[in-house]
């Protein structure tokens, strides 16, 4: 088939995706859903600007076809807010630390950190850097980004995520 229909939940909204089979998740999110917080950086899975969560796992949306994720739930950086509608913990920590310069990489950083923090695997800065090494910040603002993730992990003080994750 050259067209595909999938049902995909985006930040809690269930949507029907009717599109050409070759449409990437990234292009569907940006051009059809209007989720402009998901950025197109390299298209090769190297930069991390297009990262989203699929069922809680971070992926490069440029390297996933929309047709491949029928029935799955996508979370973008805009979906990482608190249930009450305010900023989520990671979002707030990025704001507090000034962890965005031009902002292009920020959504991907938040999304990758959301999975990494939620897995409760690592608490030291070296591990944070390791987990974020596939997200490029061309402003080279890494220090504040690592600081922000470190703040969130320290706040928790334990390796077990709260119900609903760290976001």
């Amino acid at each position, binding site marked *: 088939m050259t067209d595909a229909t999938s049902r995909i939940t985006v930040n809690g909204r269930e949507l029907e995706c009717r599109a050409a089979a070759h449409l990437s998740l990234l292009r569907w999110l940006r051009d059809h859903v209007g989720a402009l917080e998901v950025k197109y950086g390299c298209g090769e899975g190297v930069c991390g600007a297009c990262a989203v969560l699929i069922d809680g796992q971070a992926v490069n949306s*440029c390297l996933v076809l929309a047709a491949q994720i029928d029935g799955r739930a996508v979370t973008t950086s805009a979906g990482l807010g608190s249930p009450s509608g305010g900023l989520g913990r990671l979002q707030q920590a990025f704001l507090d630390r000034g962890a965005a310069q031009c902002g292009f990489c920020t959504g991907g950083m938040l999304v*990758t950190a959301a999975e990494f923090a939620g897995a409760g695997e690592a608490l030291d800065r070296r591990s944070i850097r390791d*987990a974020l090494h*596939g997200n490029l910040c061309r402003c080279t603002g890494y220090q504040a980004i690592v600081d922000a993730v470190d703040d969130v992990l320290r706040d928790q003080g334990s390796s077990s995520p709260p119900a609903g994750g760290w976001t």
Partner: protein
Amino acid sequence: MYVRPFGYTRPASPLEACEHLRRDDGAKVLAGGQSLLPLVNLGLSTPSLLVDIQSLGDLHGLHLEGEQLVIGASTTHRMLERDAQVRRVAPLLAASVREVGNLRVRNRGTIGGSVAHADPAAELPMCLIVLEARYLVDNGARVRSVPAADFATGFLTTRLAPDELLTRIEVPAAGPDWGWGFQEVARRAGDFALVAAAAIARCEGTLVADLRIGLAGVAPRPVRCPTLEAAARGRSPEALPELAPLVDPDIAPSDDSFTPAHYRAHLARVLAIRAAQDAARRSLDVRAA
């Protein structure tokens, strides 16, 4: 990222997948897509049809079967990385998989995809030839088993026929007295290796009794180092460095825009010995414990 349009299908069985591959010359198997879709996005691959095998449940997941670890072809790198059994029976795989790509690539990318893509600098295909794994290959009518060492034939090419599907990877569990070593030099974290080395070793007394070494990035496909392996038997781990030049007969590094062949050869000698020594010392540690 405006790609040449292609069709997409999600077959219900390996047989149906192979029929699509047989019918359509331009059909390609899609699993995690972390090697294929970058090539498609860059216009280097222009398939007419992608045959998505991710919904074939039999290919997904890993388990122990007697003395071997069985890995379904569409098992992700992340599943391998997080599995406690893998750390116990194949610690070399558990350690090396963490060096593949980044978190997001490992969440999607599959073990079968890495093997079938056959990048000569990839970590896992090298480790699988060291572990003497076997690959099961299915064309819908017949299943054959191919030793990992014979599978890749050159740069991005394998013994897979156009209508065949890699379905599972069988890894013999290393005995408890075997140690492992893994070494890699890459220009940036998460890159393909300039050169990587993997080794497993078993010591008797204080001497190496068995050693297997593999290298990636130094030939059009991953290689073993039989000359060095044979010479290492009966030596102490400390005496291995003088054998480093014995890597040379088994590698064929080439120049590229950034890295001269002689530098890759140098890395191969250094990393092979470091991996071998790590493996031998871990074996000695196990025996001492």
